[in-house]
């Protein structure tokens, strides 16, 4: 089959690889109909996620048709149309039972490796490095899905692929980012990164009762989308001082909640700091460029929340811990517990409360995925989200 393989930092290619086969009675094989490139795939693409190997098949946002079913699977049958959540979860460990699906204790066969870097291991993730399991990703014609009775969400109505595809990652991720803020009446929320996750965080913050949501980015088309689609207040950090602007917009208080929907490859308006982190990043002395996180902490109102869903891989420098500690700031984080949100969000999509398709800017066949990665990474041609079809 054809699959998108990582080759080297900044280099991916569509290659012929063997078809996946059932390895366990609880597996299914899914024929991928639609997939998407996620912002976090760009961290892999750029080579900033440890334990990525040439030949790794990427992709953790995908959906398709079940074509083969293991003999222990009871919930799915060949022909079923499913959206697959990006974290792999067993459904039986204590983390799964506590609704913390991305912390599944059994789904990462390389947990010992992850423990060395992170202390304890999170769940395995499709196509997201060997640190998180070494699972084949979904930017392929077929993919093996383990624990098939637990994860995949069956889609039984006439919603299109594009309407439901993002239930597997970015829609729940944006929603969880807003939910972790614990928004109360009158709260102001600022969201760093108006990419697809940021857009859904903005939409979700309004759904959860925020009085104003501020979008921080530097790409006019993304800020425009945030303003036009959800009514966010745009702040372009390339044109203005973010901290001053946020203070101004909230009459000195700062936003009650700050969402980091950027992660490890952030940019900043302070060019010296940019150069400092870029240098350390390239020298592999620091795995992140945590500008958004630093700014989110400094901007946050006293007693507020910093909610981190942008992906980080390792170690950061110069986090303003003094600001964090002295001002009673709560930090909430996590890879998305997708399984928790898929059904309720499917309902919201069905009721028309949120239209996930508005973030899509490009539609390409799988064979053109390398071009999609390039467009998305460099935000060429107004690229906000690339959907791949097979």
């Amino acid at each position, binding site marked *: 089959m054809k699959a998108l393989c990582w080759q080297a930092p900044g280099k991916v290619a569509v290659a012929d690889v063997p078809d996946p086969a059932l390895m366990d009675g609880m597996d299914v094989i899914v024929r991928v109909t639609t997939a998407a490139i996620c912002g976090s795939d760009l961290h892999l693409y750029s080579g900033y996620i440890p334990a990525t*190997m*040439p030949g790794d*098949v990427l992709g953790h946002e995908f959906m398709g048709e079940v074509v083969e079913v293991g003999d222990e699977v009871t919930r799915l049958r060949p022909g079923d149309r499913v959206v697959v959540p990006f974290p792999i979860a067993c459904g039986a*460990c204590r983390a799964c039972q506590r609704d913390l699906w991305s912390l599944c204790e*059994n789904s990462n*066969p*390389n947990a010992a490796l992850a423990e060395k870097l992170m202390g304890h291991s999170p769940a395995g993730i499709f196509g997201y490095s060997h640190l998180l399991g*070494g699972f*084949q990703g979904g930017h392929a014609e077929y993919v093996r899905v383990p624990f098939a009775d637990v994860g995949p969400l069956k889609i039984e109505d006439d919603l299109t692929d594009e309407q439901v595809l993002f239930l597997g990652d970015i829609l729940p991720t944006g929603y969880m980012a807003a939910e972790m803020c614990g928004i109360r009446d009158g709260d102001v929320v600022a969201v760093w990164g108006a990419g697809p996750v940021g857009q859904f965080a903005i939409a979700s913050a309004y759904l959860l009762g925020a009085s104003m949501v501020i979008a921080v980015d530097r790409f006019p088309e993304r800020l425009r989308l945030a303003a036009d689609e959800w009514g966010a207040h745009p702040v372009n950090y390339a044109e203005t001082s973010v901290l001053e602007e946020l203070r101004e917009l909230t009459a000195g208080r700062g936003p009650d909640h700050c969402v980091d929907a950027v992660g490890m490859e952030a940019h900043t308006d302070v060019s010296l700091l940019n150069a400092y982190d870029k240098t350390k990043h390239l020298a592999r002395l620091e795995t992140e460029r945590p500008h958004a996180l630093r700014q989110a902490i400094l901007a946050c109102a006293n007693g507020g929340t910093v909610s981190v869903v942008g992906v980080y891989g390792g170690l950061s420098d110069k986090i303003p811990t003094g600001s964090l500690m002295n001002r009673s700031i709560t930090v909430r984080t996590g890879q998305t517990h997708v399984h928790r949100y898929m059904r309720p969000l499917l309902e919201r999509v069905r009721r028309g409360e949120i239209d996930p398709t508005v973030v899509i800017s490009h539609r390409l066949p799988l064979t053109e995925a390398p071009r999609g990665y390039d467009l998305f990474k460099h935000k060429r041609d107004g690229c906000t989200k690339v959907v791949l079809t097979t």
Partner: protein
Amino acid sequence: MKDRHRAHDRLARALGWASLGLAVPLLTAPNRVARATGADDSPAAPVVIRTTGVRELGHAAALLAGPPRMVWTRVAGDVVDLAVIALALPGRDGLRRRRLAVTMAGVGAVTVLDVYAAVDARRANQFGAGRPGPLKLSASITVNRDPSEAYAIWRDFERLPSFMRHVRSVTPRGDRLWHWVVSAPIGRTVEWDAELTGDDAGRRISWRSVPGGDVDNSGTVHFAPASGERGTEVRVVLHYDVPGGMVGTALATAVGEEPEQQVRDDLRRFKQVVETGRVTRSDAMPWGADAARQALQPAAQPHPDRVDERP
């Protein structure tokens, strides 16, 4: 265990004092030492001897102030001395040659004693009181089931190979005896009969190999309820010797079969089997959790030839 510790401690200390004693003539009367050892014809001899004296002071400091395993520094020194003497031998004959040969024999004897002390210090460190073999290891994991369920799965010994990667088979031989076949490094297998020495349903299982097997070992698994609703804490303690003793273990570690990591991997797979009924396998790790293969894992893409390779 205490007695053994004291015994090898005493030996190491005595060797420390010996180094200190030897350093005195080496530093104060190098010419006389050179004559006695048959090296007095070499202009470099006094310098070499004084340098050796300084080194002996180092051994003394390490052994008298540090742990017994510092005996290894003496072993290293012995190797250097033997090499120096071996280089000096060919150029000499008569009395000098005889004196050098005697010196070499003496250093050789001391080397044997030092190696013994060093190995003993290492073995004593790992010795489990009254257990078979000098090696002990323990590991633990929490499983999301009652102690009785976790116990029942472990107690079904014939199922142990489903989560213990190295165990090929465990077959009953009568009431309290089981025959173990276990893979060893370099494609070999080892076998032994183990007898159940303790069986406390839902709490504890103990076994011990009976004499005549390839590997002498004993072990206990404890099952204890974790606090709150956190399931069961499973703790394994193993005492064992491996063929080739320490050398065997060192070789095994060198080929990626570090015993403690193996037990941790086994426990991780035990948790998977208890909680999900299977071992989790990915495209890059079709064998399931296995630290030994972590460094050699293939790319995360389908590998059809490995699909049936069960752990």
